[in-house]
């Protein structure tokens, strides 16, 4: 590595560098912003991410392998980078008024958000297990703090502690998995692992054990059953704006790591791993959707819904070992993540609009009669629920459609049937929310914050419009992962 080499490397990850430098600068600038004007910090954070987003969008076809093969910029990473930066900006829009209302205005909130986004972006480009580990920690550690930012409110502290203990437990498993992979192949680079497998120098037993531990550790992060038990508690206790971001960003980043590692480095292990993925996906869809039926608290309901959705995303990965399906695997998983992100943000912004201080306004009964007093909110929530269920022409329907198509291509009709049946089950609890909003009498309370309404309606419109014109979006998601 020399200077010109290094500047080329830094240039390739310029969006990431911008976000990290901006976060460091904002940490210092925020010290001089008075407590009444924390809106300025929010604005600055959004501007930083917007600048990074513009740079990314300006060079969407950039492909490069830099930092001695530790970082790979390709279509896959560009897609995810846009997704992460978009989520970050929407999260700022959702947070600003919410934090003011709950008395949680702290400049550190936005700085931590920026650091989390930078960790996610690093995850998207990581092509070495060391970088995967660093990215995982860079996105997790600020999220632990964000979950507990409402201290001394006990539910937030509890949520934070639970997230932290389970999160660091899963990190321990991931690190041990990486150590075993290193022991089996003598390298941590994804390309190097493939070389070691094809050269026959890899210890296959250790490698399978390492891959399984990576799957378990990352499975905790994305809340796959049976590694999901922390999710409802953490999602319920954390401030809603944090939960929204956690449900989308952290899940997408976890899947970014799973997709990149498994498709790039472990196709040779698919004989051993595909049955495991099959079972995990089936369990996750069934348990997530069935338990969600019993939930009356909207945050817990969305938490179980996010578990179920993790199962649907995992479906796309099940046939990853078949080289002719692998490209579709990545594309449909990315597309589903995008659909999930739009749908979740729509739903969460309505939840945030209805939440009152002291955790009131979060029960299903509080949504009764919403269509009378707040027709726009009720309509956006309906679109989100339809998209979660998978009703055409929403984005959620297309997400499920592409995932099931990939499954059938890979020859797993049984799993596809489970997916369709659980989707039908999910219709019950998603549509119950709609029934409450339109057919029950009630006096719902919601706030009128322009940013929140813009975020909610814009993502609801995207759900429908992008659902109708989905072809270019899917073509973009299909851009190849560099090997």
């Amino acid at each position, binding site marked *: 590595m020399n200077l010109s080499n290094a500047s080329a490397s830094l240039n390739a990850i310029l969006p990431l560098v911008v976000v990290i430098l901006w976060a460091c600068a904002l940490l210092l600038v925020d010290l001089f912003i008075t407590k009444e004007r924390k809106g300025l910090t929010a604005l600055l954070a959004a501007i930083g991410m917007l600048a990074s987003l513009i740079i990314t969008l300006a060079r969407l076809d950039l492909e490069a392998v830099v930092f001695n093969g530790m970082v790979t910029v390709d279509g896959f990473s560009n897609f995810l980078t846009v997704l992460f930066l978009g989520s970050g900006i929407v999260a700022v829009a959702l947070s600003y008024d919410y934090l003011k209302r709950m008395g949680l205005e702290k400049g550190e909130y936005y700085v931590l958000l920026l650091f989390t986004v930078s960790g996610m972006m690093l995850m998207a480009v990581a092509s070495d297990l*060391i970088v995967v580990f660093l990215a995982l*920690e860079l996105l997790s550690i600020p999220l632990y703090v964000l979950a507990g930012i409402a*201290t001394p409110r006990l539910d937030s*502290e509890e949520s934070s502690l639970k997230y932290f*203990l389970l999160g660091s437990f899963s990190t321990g498993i991931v690190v041990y998995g990486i150590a075993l992979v290193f*022991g089996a192949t003598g390298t941590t680079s994804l390309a190097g692992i493939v070389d070691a497998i094809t050269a026959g120098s890899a210890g296959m037993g250790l490698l399978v054990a390492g891959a399984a531990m990576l799957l378990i550790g990352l499975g905790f992060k994305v809340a796959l059953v049976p590694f999901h038990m922390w999710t409802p508690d953490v999602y319920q206790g954390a401030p809603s704006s944090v939960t929204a971001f956690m449900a989308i960003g952290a899940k997408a980043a976890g899947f970014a790591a799973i997709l990149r590692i498994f498709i790039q480095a472990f196709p040779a292990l698919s004989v051993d791993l595909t049955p495991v993925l099959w079972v995990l996906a089936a369990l996750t869809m069934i348990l997530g959707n069935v338990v969600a039926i019993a939930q009356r608290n909207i945050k817990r309901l969305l938490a179980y819904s996010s578990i179920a959705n993790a199962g649907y995303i995992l479906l796309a990965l099940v046939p990853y070992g078949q080289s002719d399906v692998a490209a579709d695997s990545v594309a449909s998983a990315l597309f589903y993540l995008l659909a999930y992100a739009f749908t979740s943000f729509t739903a969460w912004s309505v939840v945030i609009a209805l939440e009152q201080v002291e955790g009131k306004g979060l029960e299903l009964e509080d949504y009764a009669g919403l269509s009378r007093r707040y027709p726009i909110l009720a309509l956006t929530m309906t679109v989100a629920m339809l998209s979660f269920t998978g009703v055409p022409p929403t984005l959620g329907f297309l997400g499920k459609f592409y995932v099931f198509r990939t499954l059938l291509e890979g020859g797993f009709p049984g799993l596809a049937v489970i997916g369709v049946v659980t989707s039908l089950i999910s219709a019950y609890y998603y549509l119950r929310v709609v029934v409450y909003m339109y057919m029950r009498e009630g006096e719902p309370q919601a706030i009128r914050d322009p940013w929140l309404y813009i975020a909610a309606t814009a993502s609801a419109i995207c759900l429908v419009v992008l659902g109708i014109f989905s072809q270019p979006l899917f073509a973009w998601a299909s851009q190849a992962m560099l090997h």
Partner: protein
Amino acid sequence: MVPVEYYLGLSIVLFSLGALGVLIRRNAIIIFMSVELMLNSANLTFVAFANQYQLISGQIFVFFVMAVAAAEVAVGLALIVAIFQTKQSIDVDQINLLKG
């Protein structure tokens, strides 16, 4: 030289102790110490294999794990202190406001 299998065996024992500690113990600090034990068993594996393959990269990885673990310690202890100040207890069985 001690064969690498011995180190691997020791690290598996340490890792299992750590994982069991997380699952069985109820004190947040002890759970956290068990997590550290898991991380260090991974470090041991790295160093052992780095020595076997004569690769420096495995040892560098240990540095990264240590540095990140330090950051995790800072955040974790801060959380535990905060929750202790509110609740006067760090027993995870008593931390049950959120029904799970």
